[in-house]
């Protein structure tokens, strides 16, 4: 019977006490529970090895000085201000064991939306490639629920495990993946942004609404990031990813390169600059690439605009919640002041209804944000990676062309040398030419490879995007339905009270 795997991913948040003398960078640990499940599938047998580009990656560990990536990477040391630094004058944060985020960290995410955050499922479609079908089903569930499994997949050593990871570990993982895969055409999902302000507040032990919200926002972002990463068939098999998911302890590098979104953007811009400086304009023989690039440009503009509008919606809905709460209080006071008994009671009831509605608005604002707004934000960042990949292709082409031009020059030089009596120089020239011919061939292969990879990646990305949006939009609309249905309940309960006024 053929098997397919199920990867269950769940990230919770733990804040850990640290000794005051330790100037640690990052005290928050995120717990990843990974449950690898296998169950019979109707699909063809999985064949991991044929699908892997793994071995080849090593050769692309580039020490190439022209590697744009190296320049753009932030070299972040332990003392760098970029790292989250514990304020030595602040109290050490207490241990706050926090279980499933929905119930504690943001207590205002009401029960009506519990399902959304704890039991969301994402179905991955089949990846069509060279005959093998690979169906990964990822679901986010309560850690307690992790337990239904049969046998483990060969990728993982165990079938169920949990690891603790720091935020910087996530960034470290991303930087490793980016350095390995971006420049050969793979769309590596960007990691969440760093936020020194938000993190500092949490560190100082501020247990208020905004720091709770920040933690939840970050936890959610990391979860989405990791899920996108493991959904990528190539990235899932990368040893760094597997190590990240499995190892009880990650090696702590002395200087970790943390490529933030800003860093990624800088890298992309540098690639774009390089493209602009190209002496030979690339003759795009393949209209597909031009078309797709244009398409992504447009998409980027629209998504940014949409993101802004949705952020405005979140803001206004929060405002509505606050205003409703204030009105509720005011109505209650008015009810107390009212001397007609029945009207007084009705006013108090109205105040209660409005108070419940305020909660509804708050929940809806959260849904607006976590479902809709964050999705858009993720995709705006993803598109940066997509654009980067296209620019890398141009760069690869440039490299090939440069080699070709150099070869041409060398050939011309060699031809001239033929007529001089300098056997040493001639031999040298012939050697150089041979080397260059190899380089040219490699350049052409690289270009073809990256083009091929990009085509595949874009196709996967687009399918993924459509699915993602559709799923999220349905979830979002369902959240709206729930809100409206609650409203009906509340007002229907109030109506007899209003009618009872006499």
């Amino acid at each position: 019977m053929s098997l397919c795997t199920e990867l269950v991913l769940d990230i919770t948040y733990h804040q850990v006490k640290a000794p005051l003398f330790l100037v640690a960078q990052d005290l928050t640990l995120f717990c990843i529970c990974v449950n690898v499940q296998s169950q019979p599938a109707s699909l063809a047998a999985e064949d991991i090895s044929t699908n892997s580009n793994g071995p080849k990656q090593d050769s692309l560990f580039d020490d190439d000085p022209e590697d744009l990536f190296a320049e753009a990477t932030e070299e972040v040391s332990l003392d760098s201000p970029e790292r989250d630094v514990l304020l030595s004058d602040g109290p050490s944060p207490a241990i706050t064991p926090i279980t499933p985020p929905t119930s504690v960290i943001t207590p205002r995410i009401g029960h009506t939306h519990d399902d959304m955050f704890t039991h969301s499922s994402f179905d991955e479609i089949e990846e069509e490639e060279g005959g093998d079908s690979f169906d990964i089903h990822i679901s986010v569930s309560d850690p307690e629920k992790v337990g239904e499994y049969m046998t483990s997949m060969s990728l993982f050593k165990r079938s169920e495990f949990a690891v603790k990871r720091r935020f910087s570990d996530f960034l470290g993982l991303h930087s490793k993946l980016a350095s390995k895969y971006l420049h050969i055409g793979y769309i590596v999902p960007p990691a969440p942004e760093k936020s020194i302000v938000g993190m500092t507040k949490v560190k100082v032990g501020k247990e208020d609404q905004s720091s709770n919200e920040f933690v939840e926002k970050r936890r959610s972002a990391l979860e989405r990031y990791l899920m996108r990463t493991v959904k990528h068939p190539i990235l899932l098999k990368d040893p760094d990813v597997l190590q990240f998911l499995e190892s009880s302890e990650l090696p702590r590098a002395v200087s970790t390169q943390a490529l933030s979104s800003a860093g990624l953007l800088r890298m992309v811009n540098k690639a774009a600059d390089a493209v602009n400086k190209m002496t030979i304009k690339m003759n795009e023989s393949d209209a597909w690439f031009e078309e797709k690039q244009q398409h992504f440009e447009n998409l980027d503009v629209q998504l940014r605009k949409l993101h802004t509008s949705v952020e405005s919606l979140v803001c206004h809905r929060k405002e509505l919640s606050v205003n409703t709460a204030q009105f509720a209080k005011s109505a209650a006071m008015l009810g107390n002041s009212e001397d007609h008994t029945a009207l007084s009671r009705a006013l108090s009831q109205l105040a209660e209804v409005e108070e419940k509605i305020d909660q509804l608005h708050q929940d809806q604002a959260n849904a607006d944000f976590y479902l809709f707004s964050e999705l858009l934000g993720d995709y705006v960042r993803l598109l940066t990676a997509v654009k980067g990949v296209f620019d890398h292709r141009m760069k690869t082409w440039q490299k090939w062309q440069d080699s070709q031009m150099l070869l041409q020059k060398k050939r011309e030089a060699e031809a001239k040398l033929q007529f001089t009596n300098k056997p040493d120089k001639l031999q040298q020239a012939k050697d150089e030419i041979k080397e260059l011919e190899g380089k040219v061939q490699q350049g052409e292969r690289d270009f073809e490879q990256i083009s091929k990879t990009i085509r595949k990646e874009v196709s996967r990305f687009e399918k993924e995007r459509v699915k993602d949006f559709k799923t999220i939009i349905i979830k979002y609309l369902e959240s709206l339905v729930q809100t409206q249905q609650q409203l009906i309940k509340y007002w229907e309960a109030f109506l007899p009270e209003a009618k009872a006024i006499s």
Partner: protein
Amino acid sequence: MMAFSSLRSVSVDLNHDASLLIDIPDALCERDKVKFTVHTKTTLSSFQKPDFSVPRQHEDFIWLHDTLVETEDYAGLIIPPAPPKPDFDSPREKMHKLGEGEATMTKEEYTKMKQELEAEYLAVFKKTVQVHEIFLQRLSSHPVLSKDRNFQIFLEYDQDLSVRRKNAKEMFGGFFKNMVKSADEVLISGVKEVDDFFEQEKTFLLDYYSKIKDSTAKAEKMTRAHKNIADDYIHISATLNSLAADDMTANKNLNIILSLQKVEGRVASDQDLKLTELLRYYMRDIQAAKDLLYRRARALADYENSNKALDKARLKSKDIPQAEEHQRQCLQKFDKLSESGKKELTSFKGRRVVAFRKNFIEMAELEIKHAKNSVTLLQGCIELLKSN
């Protein structure tokens, strides 16, 4: 220029006496001025015609109100609050901002926003017509005020009232305003209250007024937030449509967002009419009731002063009959005020309760209707998306 005519629901319950029916069937908005058409239908012989209309401006209403307030005979009555000045500042400012931001929006977005603003303009217009109408209807349904001579002139006089208005201003000047300024002090510092009923009413009205004023402001903020959300939906739907144009993700099913915007907009305006406007109206009505209390308190003060004057006169044995007469008059005035004041305040409470009940019921029913509508729209869209 904007014309408007239709039936509106009234937020105040009135006993419509068929002998004198007043309504404002339409109004014109010319730049800054609104011209109301006041239409009267009457069986009373005191009027020249049984059915007639006159054009009136807001200032005419204010003149009528102020005249009534200054009339001594009506001191013991709650004079219906004057309608507030038509205020188109908010939609006008928004329209201006929209014009400035036109370049940043798609044509469709701009059109939709403009439509929304026009609807807002219309809503403000409707509200101002309603509130002017109610003022007149309160007068026509009052046994005493409906017979007022100036009221009749207001309804009937087919010439411009502005001449009369000017004369009135010269006569009364800022007298009324000055009185109001010190009114709270008169009430609170007070003269010793002899009547339990009025003592209670005073306490109640003072407290209730500040509470209802606060509630009105908070209700207004709620309504505005709703409107902002509705506007956001417009922008979101416009962007989704642009996405749909060259992209399959946001398919045309997402016109749902536009429908949601309409519903949200309607929720906002219904809440505005049934809740905010209700609170606002009764806030002003309570102010009018308070004014009655002030006048009574002043009359009481006058009476007490007249007593003191009489005592003085008796001591000096000088001008006793005048002092006695003055004291008698003050007492009479005070008693009359107390008597009619009691009646007015009692019926006021009844009116208030009835109006609140009516509006609360209507508001709840509308909220339910809109929410059900939203649910249907949303579920339909979800079905479509899932089946695709």
